[in-house]
């Protein structure tokens, strides 16, 4: 993990990296327990994407922005939302409709070379070594939104595996055109953000590729912590760190009570 002391927390960096990739007018969904996702969407709204629309998946509140990061499902978001939709009204476009959402941001127990996601179990499903929480909306958001982001708060060989033990969210499946061959709409993962770097998927093979490494991170460190061979470009970019203006807006308009630094500090260097 980064050995250079940073003036921002890991959670803040991930929120900034995600926010940068969002465009004005896009539609997004945020699940429960999604502090970094909420921060990223509201940071984008506060900076370059004022008409980004996001909805709390379970709670139905749209665009709750109060300068405080609350759990997306919380009742307090109603008072600062533009709309509140009942979940049974939302399932049509969450669970069925193709490309309603421009993007979702998902965490995982495991991800693999083609950006498939697993939050169900490690090991065999019938007798798992680790039983995870389950799938909920991940299958639909990976399968149906125009793109998705994988956000990992740990980057190690337990989390980055050659093939996920259970596919609960289809990424690029087995690579190439396998996703659309299976009848899924165009889409899949666009970026993977981790404490070590930013990764994308090579357009033809759809295999995961290094896009940039964070300050202080070496390619060997990434290789040591990734359970499959990443594609590595000739010249490795350095992640553009959050700048002063991004951090100012994040801290003064989005996360005024400091939820991100409290909950998502940098992991201890090992």
């Amino acid at each position, binding site marked *: 993990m980064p050995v250079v002391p940073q003036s921002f927390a890991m959670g803040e960096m991930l929120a900034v990296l995600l926010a940068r990739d969002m465009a004005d007018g896009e539609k997004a969904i945020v699940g429960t327990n999604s502090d970094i996702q909420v921060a990223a969407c509201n940071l984008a709204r*506060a900076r370059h994407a*004022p008409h980004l*629309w996001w909805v709390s998946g379970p709670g139905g509140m749209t665009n709750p922005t109060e300068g405080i990061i609350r759990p997306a499902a919380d009742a307090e978001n*109603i008072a600062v939302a*533009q*709309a*509140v939709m009942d979940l049974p009204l939302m399932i049509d476009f969450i669970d*069925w409709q193709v490309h309603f959402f421009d993007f979702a941001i998902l965490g995982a127990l495991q991800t693999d070379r083609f950006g498939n996601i697993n939050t169900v179990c490690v090991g065999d499903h019938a007798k798992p070594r680790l039983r995870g929480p389950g799938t909920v909306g991940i299958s639909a958001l990976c399968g149906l939104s125009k793109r998705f982001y994988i956000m990992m708060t740990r980057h190690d060989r337990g989390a980055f595996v050659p093939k996920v033990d259970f596919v609960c969210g289809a990424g690029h499946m087995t690579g190439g055109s396998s996703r659309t061959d299976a009848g899924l709409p165009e889409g899949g993962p666009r970026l993977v953000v981790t404490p070590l770097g930013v990764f994308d998927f090579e357009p033809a093979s759809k295999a995961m590729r290094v896009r940039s490494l964070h300050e202080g991170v070496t390619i060997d460190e990434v290789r040591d912590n990734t359970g499959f061979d990443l594609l590595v470009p000739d010249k490795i970019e350095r992640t553009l760190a959050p700048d002063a203006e991004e951090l100012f807006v994040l801290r003064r308009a989005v996360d005024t009570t400091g939820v991100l630094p409290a909950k998502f500090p940098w992991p201890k260097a090992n």
Partner: protein
Amino acid sequence: MKTSSGKIVDLATALSVVKDGMTVGIGGWIFHGQPMALIRGLIARGVRDLTLVPAPGSVAPDMLIGAGCVKETACVFISFEHLGLAPNFRRAAQSGTVKVLEMDGPGIAGGLRAGACDLPYGLIPDLGTDLPKVNPNGYRKARVQEGSRPLLEVPAIKPDVLLLHGQQADEEGNVQYFGAGYFDLLMAQAAKHVICSVDRIVPTSTVRQSARLTKIPSAFVDAIVVTPFGAHPGCSPGLYDQDEAHLKTYVAASRDQKSFDSYLDTFVRNGGGEPAYRDKIGAQALAALTSGGAAP
């Protein structure tokens, strides 16, 4: 950073997407929330050969039909309630000049939900009616599992354009309703393009103060047209009552095509758009509708 969402446009711009031959959905419920300013605008533009999919309605589908804009219409329910049958719809249906796709509540509900869900069809119960006989493409016998009741498949409904009327919206495009939302949101989820007229625009802070009234969140809205009294002669729930006197004038004028054309020439095809329409209706009449005493 504050920029325009670009969703608030004038009537002509909003309606420019509607082309001859399109399938047009209409929201509201009987005399509630009929998007009349949008309907009048379409008639003034002279669109032709529309296929209508109206929620249970009254003067909105009836006027489009009477103006000759419609080739065929779904009919779930088109009624003038205590004022009688929908006069132009009735005449067109009886003479056969407009094809009627007979539909019922389960048919439109199942079809819209399938449309919203990108499913090819919805499953509904076979209720023993004559609807499948007169609309065989709209109601097909479904393969049924052992022991299940008989079911029908209804094809997905996906209007090209949907016309709605709400009471107020903000610059973001959130539309608030003071009354019920009826099928409006489900239709908006199923439609490819959603145009919503509202009586007034309010700050987003006002919208946030009563977020539960936002029946059409901005993500489902493509264009908003601000048209005071845009639901007239129907009612805009919580803002103004339906105009019984004008509706009676409308029904009387609908006795034959010549007479109805004359109505349209006076109120709709006069080149003056909504401002001219409001002038024709008159300040006293409009004011009376807002005062709570106009209902019978």
